[in-house]
């Protein structure tokens, strides 16, 4: 059986999407040569220079141009080299793309996908390791997905390109080649806004995203031996959040641990906790806990500094143990 990596799954999705829909164009820095993570390898050869475009090193410029192209009837996929470099394009994404449908009463719409690698564990230092989902999750008008598995990455890219609104598609870069699985045929459909129950359990609900999801599953495995039975919920989309799935997980277990790599304050975990506190309070047996990156600007370059920042199966298991003992 073929084990497909997340990187391969995203590349396959590009091929399928671009074969299916001639309106889809791909643009970004170095994408003609395959991009720094080799996700777009071979796409120029298959689809030619009228579908695949290297851009100037100019995030605001090419993201804005993609917004205009989307309004004009194309279906652009923008690759941002690292999410850390997306900030110059925030004006375009927040002031323009997110508000275009709203401010024109639906006259003009922006069917745009912006893909960006995020997350640490690759010795990326302060500016090649950040997580920025919370920044975008605060912007009504955008959708924000962060698939954690190869199947979801492939399926959600299809959903993102088909979506009539702008989608920020976040890819955990450490997971690109680390996480592999057999992708079912035919590829299942995964709707934006749907969380996935990765493991059922009775004692604690661990709610996670991205690579932290896999660390959470590893922690749950450890805890099984200690008779702590963990449910693990993969958010998959952080805007819009899958409120019913979050509330069901909280009601089912009565104890909730939210795990993300992004730092704690203002992170998406706070929003998840607020939803549970507001709507499932009477089902809770313990205070909602969050395990996240520390509130420092970003993770350091040295491996010791990097590991000190990142959640891992042991820190997650420890947090779950404390919660189980409450």
């Amino acid at each position, binding site marked *: 059986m073929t084990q497909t990596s997340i990187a391969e799954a995203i590349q396959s999705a590009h091929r399928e999407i671009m074969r299916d829909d001639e309106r889809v164009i791909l643009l970004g820095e170095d994408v003609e040569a395959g991009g720094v993570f080799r996700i777009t390898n071979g796409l120029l050869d298959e689809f030619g220079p009228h579908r695949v475009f290297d851009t100037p090193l100019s995030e605001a410029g090419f993201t804005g141009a993609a917004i205009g192209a989307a309004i004009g009837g194309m279906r652009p996929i923008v690759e941002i080299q690292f999410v850390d470099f997306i900030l110059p394009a925030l004006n375009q994404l927040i002031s323009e793309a997110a508000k275009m449908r709203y401010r*024109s009463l639906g006259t003009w719409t922006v069917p745009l996908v912006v893909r960006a690698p995020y997350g640490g564990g690759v010795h990326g230092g302060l500016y090649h390791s950040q997580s920025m989902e919370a920044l975008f999750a605060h912007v009504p008008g955008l959708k924000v997905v962060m698939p954690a598995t190869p199947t979801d990455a492939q399926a959600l890219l299809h959903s993102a390109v088909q979506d009539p609104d702008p989608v920020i598609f976040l890819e955990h870069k450490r997971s690109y080649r680390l996480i592999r699985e057999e992708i079912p045929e035919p590829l299942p459909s995964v709707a934006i806004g749907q969380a996935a129950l990765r493991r059922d359990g009775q004692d604690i609900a661990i709610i996670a995203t991205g690579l932290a999801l896999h660390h959470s599953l590893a922690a749950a495995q450890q805890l099984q031996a200690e008779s702590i039975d963990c449910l693990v919920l993969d958010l998959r989309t952080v805007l819009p959040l899958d409120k019913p799935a979050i509330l069901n997980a909280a009601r089912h277990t009565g104890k909730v641990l939210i795990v993300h790599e992004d730092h704690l304050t203002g992170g998406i975990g706070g929003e998840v906790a607020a939803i549970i506190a507001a709507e499932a309070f009477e089902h809770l047996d313990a205070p909602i806990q969050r395990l996240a990156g520390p509130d420092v600007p970003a993770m350091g370059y040295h491996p010791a500094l990097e590991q000190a920042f990142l959640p891992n199966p042991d820190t997650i298991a420890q947090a779950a143990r404390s919660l189980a003992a409450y």
Partner: protein
Amino acid sequence: MTTAQQPQPPTASTGPARTEHADETHSSPGLTNEELIRRWYQMVLARKIGERWFVLNRQGKAPFVITGQGHEATQVGTVAALSAGKDWVVPYYRDLGVALALGMTPSELMLNVFAKADDPNSGGRQMPAHWSHKRLRMVSGSSVVGTQLPIAAGLAWAAKLQGHDAVAVTYLGEGSTNQGEFHEGLNFAAVQRLPLVVVVENNGYAITEIQTKEMAITDVADRAQAYGVRGAVVDGNDLIEVHRAMQIAVQAARRGHGPTLLEAKTYRTVPHSSDDDDRRYRTREELDLWRARDPIDRLRKHLLEARILTSEQADELIAKATEELRGAEAFAAAAPDPDPTSLATHLYADSTTLPTSSPP
């Protein structure tokens, strides 16, 4: 009083080498006599609507207005070189005259100032003068300046990729040309050789800041050289000259020769907006100097001298504009206001139905 220490008021450029000079006959190909009369009428009507907007603001009937009196020749003259409904247009908040000349009706303009539910621009969501119109292919802009340039480049890109011969035109003030997105968008359009025309309405002021505080160059069009695109400077108060320069730029774009940065030197004879008092930063003498170059008076004079229009006919058209405005205002004032319960509509295509997953 202008003193030697004060920055000099902006003047219509005598022009660098690239300037399109008037020819002896003072005409522009494609501008028939009938078309000249029609465009002059649009300038008159745009002026009257802008003036009326300010009155409505002072009467407490419009919390905020922003207009472009003085810019009419630039706005109407550039639109006269476009194919309305085919070419993409991304204006900015100064462009009441662009909207009107493209085909937005006086009634729609008055719905806009009253922020009515049926305003085609935004239905009361945006401040007035944030233009958007589906049939006119006029794409909504924000209040953030400079962002429209990459978007217009993208519209031009889509047209090119689709094999259409539509061009994209965007408008901005000279102050906005200091934004990074102006430069990034122009560079992108240049690299991809896109059918884009960037019209800079240089009125010499970014709200209160005179041009010498905005940039160290005289002609914004010089910025074109940095990106390998054509730059042109035109007297923005002369509709015929504006049309000629714009037509050259639009034809170049349509024929695949890439973008043009067209700078029209003009002046706004009103404050930046209803919340601005321009007496803080410019003299009445300077204003008088520019009123003497009024674009509407100039075209009227030409029309009379060339015997295209009689003085009586001109007066009739002015009376007609007044009448048209009056009817539009009465219609718009009586139109329904936005429904507060509509606050969340048009957020997403599927905004009413968020997907859910099954319980564990």
